[in-house]
C-alpha cells in the first residue's frame, strides 16, 4: 500500500514536472514566482500580516515542507523560532540545511546592526544582525538572481528561462528604484520613531533618521516609563513621524501620536501585510506613499 502511494506520488511529480518550493515569507514567494514562472509550484509558510518572528509550526506546515524540493528562507535568525521543528519533522532529506534544496537568502545580504555585545538582558536580539533586509527594495534583484542560480542548479533544463526572467525583473526593477529614489529624495533626514527595528534597511536606504523604538527592548512590550521618555524626546527633537507595524498593538503609537502631534503610519513590512501591498512592487509603493503623503 505504502509503495503504491509512493509510486503514485512520484508519478504525479513527473507528470507535473514542477519544482515544489516552500518559502518562509510572501516576498520570497513573489520573487520566486517572478523567476520560476510556470515551472515552479510555491507554498508560502508564513502570512504577510503576522509577526514574522512568531509563526506557529502547525503540522500542516510540516506537510508542506515535507513535499518541497527546495526550501527558501529569509535567514539571519528570523525563522529561528519556528523553522527548525518544521525541517526536523518533515523527514525530508532534500531540504536539509547544507543541501542544494536549502537556500538562505541572508547570505547574499550585508546585514546591518550586528550587535557587538550579545545578551538577552538587551531583549530578544538577533546575534547576526538585523534580519529585516526585505524592506530595502535594492536587495530584490540580488535575491532574484540568487534564486535563479539555485533553480538552474535544480532544473538545468529551464536554465535559460530562469536567467531571462531574472534579467527582465532586474531591468524592470531598476525603473522602480529610480522612481522611488526620486520620490524619497526630498524626505532625506526625516526623523521618525518605529515600533521594532523592522524598517532599518528602508530607513538607511532613503537616509531617514530613526530616533527610537516604541518597544523598550527587542521583543519586549512597551512600558509607560519608556513611552513617556519617548514623548519627551520626540518633542525636544521635533520628530513628526511614527512607523507602526501591522502585527503589534497600535495603542502606544496612538497615544504618542496624540501627545506629540506626530503622524502615525501603518507600514507594511512584507507582501500582503496590508491589503494594498499585494505585489512586491506595490509593497514599496505603499510604504513610500504612506510616508510621503501628508
Amino acid at each position, binding site marked *: 500500500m505504502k509503495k503504491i502511494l509512493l509510486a503514485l506520488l512520484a508519478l504525479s511529480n513527473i507528470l507535473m514536472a514542477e519544482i515544489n518550493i516552500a518559502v518562509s515569507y510572501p516576498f520570497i514567494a513573489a520573487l520566486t514566482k517572478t523567476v520560476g514562472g510556470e515551472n515552479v509550484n510555491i507554498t508560502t509558510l508564513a502570512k504577510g500580516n503576522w*509577526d514574522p518572528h512568531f509563526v506557529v509550526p502547525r*503540522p*500542516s506546515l510540516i506537510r508542506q515542507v515535507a513535499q518541497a524540493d527546495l526550501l527558501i528562507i529569509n535567514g539571519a535568525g528570523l525563522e529561528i523560532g519556528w523553522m527548525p*521543528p518544521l525541517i526536523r519533522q518533515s*523527514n525530508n*532529506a532534500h531540504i536539509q540545511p547544507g543541501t542544494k534544496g536549502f537556500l538562505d537568502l541572508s547570505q547574499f545580504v550585508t546585514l546591518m546592526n550586528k550587535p557587538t555585545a550579545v545578551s*538577552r538582558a538587551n531583549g*530578544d536580539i538577533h546575534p547576526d544582525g538585523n534580519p529585516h533586509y526585505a524592506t530595502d527594495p535594492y536587495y530584490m534583484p540580488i535575491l532574484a538572481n540568487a534564486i535563479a542560480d539555485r533553480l538552474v542548479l535544480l532544473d538545468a533544463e529551464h536554465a535559460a528561462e530562469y536567467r531571462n526572467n531574472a534579467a527582465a525583473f532586474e531591468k524592470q526593477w531598476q525603473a522602480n528604484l529610480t522612481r522611488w529614489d526620486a520620490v524619497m529624495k526630498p524626505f532625506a533626514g526625516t526623523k521618525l520613531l518605529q515600533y521594532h527595528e523592522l524598517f532599518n534597511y528602508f530607513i538607511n536606504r532613503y537616509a531617514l533618521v530613526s530616533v527610537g523604538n516604541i518597544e523598550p527592548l527587542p521583543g519586549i512590550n512597551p512600558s509607560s516609563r519608556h513611552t513617556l521618555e519617548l514623548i519627551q524626546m520626540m518633542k525636544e527633537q521635533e520628530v513628526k513621524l511614527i512607523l507602526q507595524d501591522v502585527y503589534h498593538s497600535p495603542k502606544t503609537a496612538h497615544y504618542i501620536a496624540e501627545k506629540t502631534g506626530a503622524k502615525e503610519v501603518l507600514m507594511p513590512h512584507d507582501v500582503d501585510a496590508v491589503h494594498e501591498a499585494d505585489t512586491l512592487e506595490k509593497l514599496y509603493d505603499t510604504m513610500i506613499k504612506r510616508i510621503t503623503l501628508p
Partner: protein
Amino acid sequence: MKKIILGSMFLPLLLSAESSSYTNYSSSFNQSAFVPDIALIVDGSYVNRSVTDADMDNYTLAGSSLSDYNEFNTNSGFNLNYAELSLHSDVDQLFTLDGVFHFNVEGVEIEEAYFTTTSMPYSLQLKGGKFKSSFGRLNKQHQHVWDFADAPLVYNAFLTPEGLNHPGVQLQWLAPTPWYMMAGVEMMQSGEEGSFVNQTFTDATSSKEVVASNEPALYIGYLKNSFDIANASVLFGLSAAHGATKSEEASFDGATTIYGADLLVKNYFDSYSYLSWQSEVLQRDAKGDDTNTSISADYTQRGAYSQLVYAYDQNWRTGLRFDTIFHDSRQSDPNEIQNRYTVMAEYNPSEFSRIRAQYAHNRAFNNVTTGENQDINTFILEVNLAIGSHGAHSF
C-alpha cells in the same frame, strides 16, 4: 631545506627585529566553533497544600501508592524541580544528537539521550537512544512545555510522571497525503515502575517464581492527523502501548495495554493570541495473574483530562483543566468518578521567563486509612527560566 638553514641563521636577527615571524596567529586547533547548542532551564516552585506531606504518602490513586507518583512540586514549601541541561548538535551528514539532563537535589538523571536521522528516504525518520515516546499528546513534551505545573492524573497513574521514557528505537513515517498524517512505531526496554514493570522475582507469599520477559518488552504505535480550518489547527491522534507487567510490588504477572486518543483544537486570533482546547482519554487493560493466589487479576481503568487555555497576548495566559479517573474495575464501585479541577494564570515577562500561579481542588486521591476520597487543595507558584540556545518548540 636551504630556506630553513638560512632562516635559522637569521633567526636571532629576526627575533630582535620582528619576534612574530613564527608566531601562530591562527587558532590551528581551536574547536570552539563546534560547541553544540546548550541550554539551561531551571524550574522551581512554592507549594501550599491543605494536607501535610506525610499524609500524601497515605493516599492512593487508581489503586497505586502516591509516593511513587510525585516528581514535581513534591514538598510543601520550596521545591527545586530541576535544572535541565540540554545539548543539541549535528553529528555528521546523517545524524543529530540530543542530550537532556535533569539535575536535582538527588543527583543527575539522563532524561533523554538520542540520535535522530536527517536524511532517510521515503519520508522516514529513525530515532534511537533513551527518549520520550510520542505516545499521546503530553508524553513527549518536557514539563516546561506543559500548560500546567503538573501532569494530568491519568498520566501520573498510567504512565508515571516520568512518562514512557526508556531506551529504545523509534521509526516515524510521514504519509504523502494532502493533510498531515504521521505514523510511528517504537520498541522500548520496559521500565522499573509504572504500568510496564518488568522484574524477575519470587512472590513472598506463594513462592511463585516470575521471570522477566525477554527485553525489549514494550511496543508502542500511534497515528496522528492534522489539518487546518481557517486559523485553527486540529490535531488528533490514536496511540497504543503494549508490554509485559511483572511487578513484585503489585504481585502481578501478565501484560498491560494502554490505549489513548487525543484531540487538540488551537485557534490563533493573531500572532500572539490563541484559544486552545486539548483533551485525552486513556484506557489501561491489565491481563494476568495475582502472584499470591495465581488467580486471574485482570482489570480495566479509564481516565481523561480536558483543558482550555487562552493566551491573551505574549505576556498573559490563563487555563482551566478538568481531569478524572472515571472507571476502575478494581474498586467496589467501578464507575465512581474521581476528579480534580485546576486553574492557572501565567505572566511571561519575555520568551525566556515564566511565572505561573496554579490552584487545584482534588478529590481523586483515596485515603488508605479511612477508605474515603480526600479533599486536597494545592496552590503552586512556579518560576521557569531559560538561558542559552532556545530551541523552537514543536506544535
